[in-house]
């Protein structure tokens, strides 16, 4: 199986890639001094005691950016095969791709108009 042999390499890479950077961490864990105390381990907060829960509520803005990104990311699922086969396709493929991209840019234009892209 040609394809599996290819991916055996990638799989091995996925298994070994975390190990290499982990080596210095482990080494440091062995070598470095360990004298923990409460003040040292306190959460960094400019010298003030932490107030309240860390998981404070954040702006919905971040979610909206994530949302637009998700849509464009899924778009890639279709655009990559399209671009891949593009040279062997006829002019109709261009029109299909154009319509696809146009429909999606609509969403971007809407977000722009509604000032979703405005950082507040």
């Amino acid at each position, binding site marked *: 199986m040609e394809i599996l042999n290819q991916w055996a390499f990638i799989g091995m890479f996925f298994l070994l890639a975390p190990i290499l950077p982990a080596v210095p961490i482990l080494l440091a864990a062995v070598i470095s001094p360990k004298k923990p105390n409460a003040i040292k381990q306190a959460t960094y907060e400019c010298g003030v005691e932490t107030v309240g829960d860390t998981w404070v509520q954040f702006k*919905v803005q971040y*979610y909206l950016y994530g*949302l637009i990104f*998700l*849509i464009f*990311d*899924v778009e890639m*699922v*279709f655009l990559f095969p399209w671009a891949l086969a593009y040279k062997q396709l006829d002019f109709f493929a261009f029109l299909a791709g154009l319509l696809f991209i146009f429909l999606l840019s609509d969403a971007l234009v809407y977000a722009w108009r509604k000032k979703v892209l405005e950082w507040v």
Partner: protein
Amino acid sequence: MVPLWMYLTVAAALFSIGMYGVLARRNAVAVLMGIELMLNAVNLNLIAFWRYLTPFNMSGQAFAAFVLVVAAAEVAVGLAIIIAVYRNRQSVEVEDVDMLKG
């Protein structure tokens, strides 16, 4: 190769776990995650059948891609609803969301 029924078993198990999550969890986000599991079980089935039965036909991969789109759309809207509900009710428990009862 690993026989087809093994893939199907994994997919069935994944589907059931996802279904349990959807039915049993209280938190709406957790319910959405359960739905994601179910959709992925479906995708696994699609690809497994495609590979074993119709590998020279595009339909399996194409349908899996469309399932992906539906999953993404569902997550986007689902999470947006959850955030909106949370803003109004300060809760994301499925049982608390009964505004339509009037």
